[in-house]
């Protein structure tokens, strides 16, 4: 199936759920709304032809320019981008899904943005979402066990956020 035909099929199935696509990129991607994410994922996995049965990776890219000089020229509004790399074992084809989220829920600093968990679709997502929550601060709603996984449970903050600051001290260990 050609890329355009695939995007058309997806748009037909999810109308407003699919908000963008770039088929020219190195890894062609499709952007969906946070509300449509879980349904799109189920569709991609269960469709008899597409069969994206493996979730390779979940990444969050934090778009925030912390340098005030560069911030004026930045070509984006601050936001988070959740990137899902999918793979179809029978078809040997990959796909990139993107979801844009606000950096903080309701613009209240400290309130993690919410996104539906796909742990019920691919079980890989269980640990990957925990890692994303831990390091990038996204609250996956419906996740069976959303705890920190790499950092200690009492760690403060989410290190892969661009405005994260290293703690000066952690249990008597000097930070810098």
């Amino acid at each position, binding site marked *: 199936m050609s890329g355009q035909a695939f995007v058309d099929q997806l748009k037909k199935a999810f109308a407003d759920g699919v908000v963008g696509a770039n088929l020219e990129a190195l890894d062609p991607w499709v952007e969906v709304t946070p509300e449509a994410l879980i349904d799109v994922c189920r569709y991609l996995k269960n469709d008899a032809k597409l069969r994206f049965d*493996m979730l390779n*990776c979940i990444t969050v890219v934090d778009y925030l320019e912390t340098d005030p000089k560069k911030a004026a020229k930045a070509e984006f509004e601050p936001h988070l981008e959740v990137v899902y790399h999918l793979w179809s074992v029978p078809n040997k084809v990959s796909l990139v899904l993107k979801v844009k989220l606000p950096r903080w829920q309701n613009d209240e600093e400290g309130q993690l943005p919410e996104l539906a968990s796909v742990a019920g679709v691919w079980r890989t997502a269980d640990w990957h979402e925990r890692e994303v929550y831990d390091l990038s601060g996204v609250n996956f709603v419906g996740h069976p066990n959303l705890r920190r996984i790499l*950092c200690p449970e009492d760690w403060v903050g989410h290190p892969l956020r661009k405005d994260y600051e290293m703690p000066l001290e952690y249990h008597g260990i000097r930070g810098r």
Partner: protein
Amino acid sequence: MATQTGTAFADDPRIIEYDVRTDEMLINMGPQHPSTHGVLRLVLRTDGEIVSEAVPHIGYLHRCAEKIGENLAPRQFVPYTDRMDYLAGMNMNLGWALAVEKLMNLEIPEKAKHLRVIIAEMNRIASHLVGMGTYGLDLGSFSPFLYAFREREKILDLFEEACGARLTYSYLTVGGATHDLPATWLEKCEAFLDQLLPVITEYHTLLTTNAIFVRRAANIGVMSAATAIDFGCTGPVLRGSGVDQDLRRDGEQWYTEMYDGYAFEVIVEKDGHYPKDHEYPAIPKTAVLGDCWHRFYVRMLEVIQSIDLVRQAIDRYRTATGSHCVPVKLNQKLPKGEAYLETECPKGQMGFFIVSRGEAIPWRVRARSSCFSNLSVTHELCRGCLLADVPAIVGSLDIVMGEIDR
């Protein structure tokens, strides 16, 4: 006969056992335990000898390499990839270098490609040897471990001669490799391969067909293909469950072009046989597809496959044209865009994701660890198994904590 549900009578000697309460017990395995392959902590919920829950706790080696990557040029990040899977540093270097080359649309010379195949496959052998040796150790057989390390040592010597390092190489880098192979290196490498092949047959007699080993590994920790895919398992763990996937054949053009024209078969069971397994021990009757034995056997056969690939690569390297690298400046600006590339590393599919906004330093770096996904299946495999089988199952996944924690 007293029934199990009835109350025990103190005067009946046969049922005195019913008075012994067997409460559930939480057992901490690790983080310092020889059979957890690094600092992995497993919390086991056991009822007598039966494990009902196995929860891995990870993060003891976490260094947030991804954050470090956001502050360094791609070539400066290469040494950090060494420290992910430190048993296969070359393969990590290669994965990162290819992802960056994909982003930069950088074509590397013919000679560098074949050099990379030689080095990457040699490191695969080294990694599988450690996997094999330590697995024997997990199951209580000490000597294969020593033999495996003896052979691995020779590979490390070869690597030392090529790049000066024995563990953290940073040899394969963006644009090719840091140095060309030294004179007479190829001959030494060939001599090593010649003597390795018969040794592998000895290992088969030591472990693969060893009755005790088969009893400990066959039909233990059986994982169906569907479960393996669902949990994102890759590499020998996935192929051990009978899924025909190897990125050296199925991956992206950026990676597979290295192996263009090479003759090799994906090591996966088809109709009860592995490719070329008639030359090697038969599958024991007790083994079930997807069990620990099959995962182990896939690795053993991949060693043979890699020997074959290195030989082919040496032939091509000898006649290849071009240099071992194309120069890439440290402050060279990366094109705007994103690139994700997975490569077939010894332990599974390692992916690197790099996002650039047009500067010399990437905006975001992500390392997708194969062992991370492979380990997440532990609970599924260990549920209901015997306590003594936990090391057998975890060992068969062949994990390295440096890669899981990054």
